[in-house]
């Protein structure tokens, strides 16, 4: 077993101790199909939580998106994202000749699954902000890939913005039914529909 695999097991264990990492597969079973999971984004912990909620053999084929400038800044960060999580690196600076979705498209072409946070940044208002259009473009290019709405609950209490030590609080990750891009569906309509689908998974009290 390599060091990266051990690190992965350790992180999954920590996530389990802190949050319980319960994956609730409400709308689809955890199968090895090619998927794009799109989720609400409230904390740096979000990705680890989704990753730990996945069954072990799905973890290697499911990749996060990492900002290149931040996550390659130090050797450790680079090793963590490259070796442990097998992240897809994207650059935040826009250049004219390059499509920012290019690395994602490549990953999908080789058959990997992705986890994306279409809000683009962390929100702490409770309800997710409007989605960015990347999800729509990917759905358009890869109609055969399942789009799974995902709601992560409670994680903002584990590690609020600006804190470093997580507090043990139970979190859930709820996976919903796959979404389809309708024939000729408008971009904004689709993105709003996707956002509603994520929001609909929010657990209600009692």
């Amino acid at each position, binding site marked *: 077993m390599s060091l990266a695999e051990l690190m992965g097991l350790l992180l999954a264990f920590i996530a389990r101790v802190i949050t319980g990492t319960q994956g*609730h597969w409400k709308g689809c079973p955890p199968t090895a199909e090619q998927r794009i999971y799109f989720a609400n984004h409230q904390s740096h912990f979000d990705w680890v939580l989704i990753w730990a909620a996945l069954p072990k053999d799905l973890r290697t084929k499911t990749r996060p998106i990492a900002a290149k400038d931040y996550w390659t800044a130090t050797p450790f960060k680079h090793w963590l994202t490259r070796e442990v999580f097998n992240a897809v690196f994207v650059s935040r600076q826009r250049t004219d000749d390059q499509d920012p979705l290019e690395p994602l498209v490549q990953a999908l072409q080789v058959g990997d699954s992705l986890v994306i946070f279409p809000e683009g940044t962390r929100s702490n208002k409770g309800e997710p902000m409007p989605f960015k259009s990347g999800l729509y473009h990917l759905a358009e290019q890869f109609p055969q890939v399942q789009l799974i709405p995902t709601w992560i609950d409670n994680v903002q209490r584990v590690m609020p913005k600006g804190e470093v030590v997580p507090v*043990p609080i*139970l979190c*859930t990750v709820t996976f919903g039914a796959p979404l389809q891009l309708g024939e000729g569906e408008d971009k904004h309509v689709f993105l709003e529909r996707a956002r509603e689908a994520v929001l609909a998974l929010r657990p209600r009290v009692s």
Partner: protein
Amino acid sequence: MTSLRNLTVDEQVALLFFTLFGLLVLVSVATALYSLRDTPGAQGEALKRFRRDLRAVWVGATAFWLAWVSGPVGATLFFGLFSFLALREFISLQHTRRSDHHSLILAFFFVLPVQYAIVATRHFDLFTVFIPVYVFFAIPVVSAMAGDPHRFLERNAKIQWGIVVCVYGLSHAPALLLLDFPRYAGRGAFLLFFLVIVTAVAQVVQELASRRLRRRPVARHISRSFSWRAWVIGAIVAACVGALLYWITPFKAGQALAMAFIAAGCGTLGEFVMKALKRDAGVFFWGNRSGVTGAVGLLDRVAPLCFAAPVFFHSVRWYFKLA
């Protein structure tokens, strides 16, 4: 009974676990055979619930055994883990704010380990005052430092409460294992076993009695099943079971009866209090069925013990006139 008393401590402990696991195996085999029959609707549902509870008893019994064989350190670690999971469940269902973050870190990563370290090293004087005195002061200080006056008293009360029930209360269980009584050395496991059995019996009997009796509930908005008569029946039956078990304890039969009554009564009243708390938090189970968290419902199961253990522990200490 006299022949049992003449056995060595280790033999008695071995006999205790042998009986416990023997009974569990018998019940499990019987359930497995019964489930082969076609059970329709409500009956099947009841059977499923029973099997889930049985599984929990298995886990509990195994944990108890492991705690015993692994000695003071193992026992402390085991109950420490239970405490951690219970407190995690408790805090998850309370509304906390961002500014509670440091208080919560203090509760989880300082108070809890220190309390159990004190148990493991048998500093029983510090053990009884550490949380009620020192932590009681420390939590609001840390909380005030965060600079958020919004619902200050309420937020602190919640955290203090969680600590007292899930950490302080439950830490009395390993303390029973570790407290050395004169003429009773090495038999702490029996006391803990006695406590667990009587609280469990009281819980089950009270539940059955309230279903049978259909009395007017004392507090309808908190629990539809809790009535004084059911509570008394539960506690009395548990007291009788305790009296029958007197030979494993340092008590005489009458004293065992009284101690069991106290422990069982506290346990079921504690459960009632936890129900009030659940209603306040807007859930019916601490467990998964609430849909709010991924909790396993551990708190539902340990709550009676959290309340009964401290009362029982101090009654026992008083009985032995331990300093």
